[in-house]
């Protein structure tokens, strides 16, 4: 355990170095990146063997003589520590070439400082074992990530995004406080171990409060609306870490809460499952509807949170239905997907950052043809896209396979559980299909075809650090897909401390995993053989090149290419009641019509809902109370005195 604190100290030292040396730009970046990565390395070195052996550890510190900081490590915490220590070093290396602006060196230093605090606080969230420690770490995490989002604070849009994130982070934290306070009122203890003892009927309410609180961090529908705003605002390496790792802390919280409460009611599992399905499907539909790469990726994170929640929900329903296989594979699938998603989502965000850096746009309608201009970014983005669509032989498939497998085991249930399981499988299939559509759109329109603007035409490959990191991550996506067994084992050891499934024997399943890996290899072998066959066929043949067949039209322009909006339109329209589309068309009026425009916009139904039913009424109510604010400091002091007196009188 001490090693872990050493690693956190080293990480924080790395961040402090960023502040200290900010005058020497390159030196500062080097020192910070190397130190912080070393800290993460120490952490990983500690976590990995512990996770495989399955040891647990506890440690407590007295803090300010009043409260104890209590830390505990079980297999779940150890598993979640892995992405926390694995992804940040990679994103930091990437940032070496991403943060290139010397003018902003102080800001870059501050960015590194908060970055290291974010890593440290996430590690502490996962390790903490009482309410005080947990909330302390949780708040630290929210605040440090808020400052990371506010990197480009000059733009008012970015500031707004930051504020929105702050509201959701703190609103969520408030719900957590409420949930913890409820627990405390029943048990009278701050200790996590006291959760299980509280009365059964209180557990549901506590879980729902905590679920909403953690859900606002994880991005469940309809608490997700900060994601598509904050991610485009934040620098790409920050989006990568936030989407890849930080939102998983919400998942960790939900799962930890479930484990601690150990509820007997099946309702909780059903709530989680249904939320997962709604989040997953609507997330991917909105992802499909968006043309801004980073917004699209943010919605895709919402979708993946949905998949993870489906896995957890399947697991919880397995526990309440006493179906060990279902529980085991549901949880294991969710865990593996957490791990996989942290890799490919970071990869995709880095790819998007690289595009933004060089082609100066993140709108896919303004890109195109980047595969030839940015070969490394393009290829790794392609791999990431295939992986996130859950297609074999890449990593995304393995996690989804586990969840599918768990869900199929659950088909023995009765009535409501059965129907929910059926719907879960079908929603997974729909999510998978829509995700492929979504990512073929991004790759096909941004990286393939012809560049739509001059900026995209002039784009060139990004720096070596960025390319190298992206290639490593792309390779690991393929590696996990082809040789999944060690990673599946890792997920299995992640859930070994959960009592409900600890006695399940998974050996027969490992055989299936080996078959999966064989199938993947067979496919790759066939693929290589067919490629060679194709090469032979083309030997000594005439290979011509010309323009694309325009179906008789002889003067094509790049503007004639299919756009992202039209690519997605039919699919999005299918979900019309949940995904409002606004079209504006000026129409063709005269015999010789002039210029005409057609505009299509998809608004987030959650956002409009908040606006209509929450913020607008709230605002009109608060405007009526405006007279309290008048700017005289003396009167404000008067308010304070009155408030104190009233409180003293009544308490």
């Amino acid at each position, binding site marked *: 355990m001490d090693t872990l604190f050493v690693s956190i100290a080293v990480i924080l030292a790395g961040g402090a170095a960023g502040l200290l040396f900010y005058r020497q730009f390159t030196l500062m970046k080097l020192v910070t990146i190397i130190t912080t990565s070393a800290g993460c390395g120490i952490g990983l070195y500690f976590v990995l063997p512990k996770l495989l052996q399955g040891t647990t550890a506890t440690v407590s510190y007295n803090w300010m003589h009043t409260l104890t900081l209590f830390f505990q490590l079980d297999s779940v915490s150890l598993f979640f520590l892995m992405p926390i220590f694995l992804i940040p070093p990679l994103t930091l290396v990437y940032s070496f070439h991403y943060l290139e602006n010397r003018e902003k060196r102080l800001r870059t230093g501050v960015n590194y400082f908060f970055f290291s605090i974010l890593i440290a606080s996430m590690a502490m969230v996962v390790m903490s074992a009482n309410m005080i420690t947990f909330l302390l770490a949780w708040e630290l995490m929210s605040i440090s990530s808020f400052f990371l989002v506010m990197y480009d604070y000059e733009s008012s849009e970015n500031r707004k995004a930051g504020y929105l994130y702050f509201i959701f982070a703190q609103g969520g934290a408030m719900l957590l406080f409420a949930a913890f306070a409820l627990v405390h009122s029943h048990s009278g203890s701050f200790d996590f171990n006291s959760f299980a003892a509280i009365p059964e009927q209180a557990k549901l309410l506590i879980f729902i409060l905590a679920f909403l609180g953690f859900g606002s961090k994880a991005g469940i529908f309809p608490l997700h609306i900060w994601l598509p705003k904050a991610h485009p605002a934040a620098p790409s390496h920050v989006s990568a870490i936030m989407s890849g790792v930080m939102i998983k802390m919400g998942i960790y919280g939900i799962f930890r809460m479930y484990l601690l409460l150990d509820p007997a009611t099946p309702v909780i599992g059903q709530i989680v499952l249904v939320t997962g399905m709604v989040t997953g499907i609507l997330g991917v539909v909105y992802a499909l509807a968006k043309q801004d790469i980073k917004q699209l990726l943010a919605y895709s994170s919402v979708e993946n949170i949905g998949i993870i929640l489906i896995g957890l929900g399947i697991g919880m329903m397995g526990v309440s239905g006493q179906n060990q296989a279902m529980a085991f594979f549901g949880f294991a699938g969710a865990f593996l997907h957490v791990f996989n998603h942290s890799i490919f989502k970071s990869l995709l965000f880095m790819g998007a950052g690289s595009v933004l850096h060089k082609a100066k746009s993140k709108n896919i309608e303004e890109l195109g043809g980047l595969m030839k201009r940015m070969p490394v970014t393009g290829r790794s983005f392609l791999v990431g896209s295939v992986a996130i669509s859950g297609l074999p032989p890449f990593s995304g498939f393995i996690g989804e396979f586990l969840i599918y497998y768990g869900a199929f085991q659950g088909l023995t249930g009765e009535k409501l559980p059965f129907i929910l399981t059926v719907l879960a499988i079908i929603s997974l*299939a729909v999510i998978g*299909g829509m995700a*492929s559509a979504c990512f073929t759109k991004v790759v*096909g329109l941004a990286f393939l075809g012809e560049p739509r603007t001059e900026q995209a035409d002039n784009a060139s490959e990004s720096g070596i650090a960025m390319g190298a990191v992206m290639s490593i991550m792309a390779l690991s996506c393929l590696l996990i897909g082809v040789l999944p067994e060690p990673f599946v084992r890792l997920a299995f050891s992640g859930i070994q401390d959960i009592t409900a499934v600890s006695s399940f024997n998974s050996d027969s399943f490992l055989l299936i995993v080996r078959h999966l890996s064989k199938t993947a290899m067979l496919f790759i072998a066939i693929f290589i053989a*067919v490629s060679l066959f194709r090469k032979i*066929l083309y030997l000594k043949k005439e290979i011509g090149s010309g323009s694309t067949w325009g179906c008789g039209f002889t003067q*094509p322009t790049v503007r004639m290419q299919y756009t992202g909006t039209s690519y997605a339109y*039919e699919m999005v329209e299918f979900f019309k009641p949940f995904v409002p589309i606004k079209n504006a068309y000026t129409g063709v009026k005269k015999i010789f019509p002039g210029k005409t425009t057609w505009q299509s916009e998809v608004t987030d139904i959650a956002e409009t809902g908040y606006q209509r039913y929450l913020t607008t009424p709230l605002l009109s109510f608060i405007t009526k109370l405006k007279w309290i604010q008048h700017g005289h400091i003396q009167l404000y002091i008067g308010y304070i005195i009155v408030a104190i007196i009233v409180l003293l009188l009544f308490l």
Partner: protein
Amino acid sequence: MESVLAFCFAVAIAPLLPAVIQKTKAYFAGKQGPPLLINYYTMIKLFKKGSVYSTSTSFVFKLGPVVGFSTSLMMLLYFPMAEVAPIFSFHGDVLILFYLMGLGRFFTILAALDTASPFEGMGAAREAFFSTLAEMTIFAILILFFKLTGSLSFYEFFSGDQAIDLMGEYSALLILVVVGLYVVMLTENSRVPVDDPATHLELTMIHEAMILDHSGPDLALIEMGAWFKLLFYSGFLARLIDPFHAENVIVNGLLFYAVVTFIYISIGVVESITARYKMPQVPKFILTPFILVFFVIILSMGVMQ
């Protein structure tokens, strides 16, 4: 050994059967139609040719046909054609195989978008949409089969004590599954009434529009992939409706392929007597079988004993 032979036979016969569809359609049109071996001739012709590549395309364009062909071939490797055990099979193979099909589609769509042609983009968008809808039906069928047999592999579906059998306990309900699978087959293989490869306007095609720019051996690979895929789906359907079970492997195989041929003829008949749906009507057509299969699932829940 048997399995390998069955696989080789399936690969060899795959190009022959689509000619049956063409013959049927020709018969309805009062024409003589192309020779039955037409597809072999086409293949040889295409293999002999070179290719012209658009300057817009990148390596992804060349990857499309290869991935598509490989994934279709994988399906035949894992599917028990003619009641012979497939070369490979394991519990859970249906999931990875249908996802591999998804991979093939992913790259076909990318190859289409790589050409920067509006027509191919349009085809790609429709393909992505309709296949997602068809996937719902496929997974509903998998759920039902798992419920009936407790297995997740093509081979286990049709072997063992609880093998799926149209004559068995759920016979009447399996009729609905057959309808569902038939619609999925039409959708996934771009046949009328979902897609019409024979129209004169690229705007109204789906699959055919996506491969406009492929030529030579690349086109041959795509065509062969499509034939394998059609053979896989009609084989799946044939395993469901095949009422004959013979002791002798060869007789059995012949009977099986007779049923498969019957399915191909039925496709030809459908194509001759119906027109393609309007594009907005197609999702409805694909959704109906999903709901049918869902109905069967609900019944399988145990209401019906």
